[in-house]
């Protein structure tokens, strides 16, 4: 046991000095990645996430549901209609007052306008459409509304971010604010901004949503995991987007 404690003490974690807090805008998580990962992310021919973007492009033109419409039938070419959309999400849908992210917005479009069944949250199809839509805002700065109807969602998301939870009794902020820029194993802890989602994660060996990442984080601190698309996650997604104000969308990013 003594040896175990000794060897644990040798784990090189949090070895770097604390980063200067509240620099604005915050650095994208991409800046903490290795040269190899950054190069692959930047190269459309090498970034495996582009496979999902291409699938999304195909789905964009595919007629779905009893209304006999494709996404393109209403929105036209995504290169024009979706440019500058992703960086406004999550946003409040005025008719229902619900907070929607890209994925839940796409599913609302399917059920309401296409008269089609919603896509499963973590399905390749929904990830593909979300990645394709977000890709049209590549390089554009995130800027979500947190006032008016969005204010209560923002406040709930912020409260989620700072609340300790799980058996490890850690809040999001304890890693992603207090220790952002420092080491946890070989990773550098990011500011938790979500500007590259849906993201290709090497650990997953596939593209995944920001909510999958939330689930992984909550698993890590031994806390209750919510369902994909849960209101708590949508609120948190809005709060992260507000922290990411001014940071470029990088979908699909690559992370270890």
């Amino acid at each position, binding site marked *: 046991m003594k040896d175990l404690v000794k060897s644990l003490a040798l784990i090189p974690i949090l070895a770097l000095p604390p980063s200067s807090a509240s620099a604005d805008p915050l650095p994208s998580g991409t800046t903490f990645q290795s040269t190899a990962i950054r190069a692959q992310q930047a190269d459309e*021919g090498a970034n495996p996430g582009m496979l999902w973007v291409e*699938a999304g492009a*195909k789905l964009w033109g595919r007629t779905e549901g009893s209304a006999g419409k494709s996404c393109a039938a209403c929105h036209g070419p995504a290169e024009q209609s979706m440019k500058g959309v992703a960086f406004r999400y999550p946003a409040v849908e005025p008719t229902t007052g619900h907070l929607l992210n890209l994925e839940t917005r796409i599913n609302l479009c399917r059920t309401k306008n296409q008269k089609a069944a919603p896509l499963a949250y973590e399905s390749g199809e929904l990830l593909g459409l979300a990645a394709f839509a977000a890709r049209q805002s590549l390089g554009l700065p995130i800027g979500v509304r947190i006032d008016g109807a969005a204010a209560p969602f923002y406040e709930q998301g912020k409260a989620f971010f700072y609340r300790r939870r799980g058996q490890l009794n850690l809040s999001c902020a304890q890693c992603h604010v207090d220790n952002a820029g420092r080491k946890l194993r070989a990773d550098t802890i990011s500011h938790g901004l979500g500007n590259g989602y849906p993201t290709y994660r090497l650990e997953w060996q596939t593209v995944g949503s920001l909510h999958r990442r939330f689930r992984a984080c909550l698993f890590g601190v031994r806390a209750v995991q919510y369902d994909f698309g849960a209101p708590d996650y949508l609120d948190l997604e809005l709060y992260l987007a507000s922290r990411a104000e001014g940071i470029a969308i990088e979908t699909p990013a690559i992370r270890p």
Partner: protein
Amino acid sequence: MDISPARISVPTEAKKGDIIAIKTLFRHPMETGYRVDRYGKPIPRRIVKRFSVTYAGDVVFAMDFTQGVAANPFIAFHAVAVETGEIVFVWEDDQGKIVTERRTLTVAR
């Protein structure tokens, strides 16, 4: 998801004798056969076995895989532009699934 499983970056035009860079991505789990599911049941191996590229009558590049190749395999390689024609890309996995993609290269003399 079976929609557009392959992505190919290849020039559409080249001069005769040019060396062109080709990059391919292929959506495939490259399941190692070493993993178990959440109930402890082994997940059977499923990998791409071979990738080959034919152009102007010859196989110009081929690759043999094992589970030691990452999921959604990326490959970057080169070919000499010799004549206008189709470049044919074929991925074959160990369950016999075959995906074929074709791109036309126009070669100016």
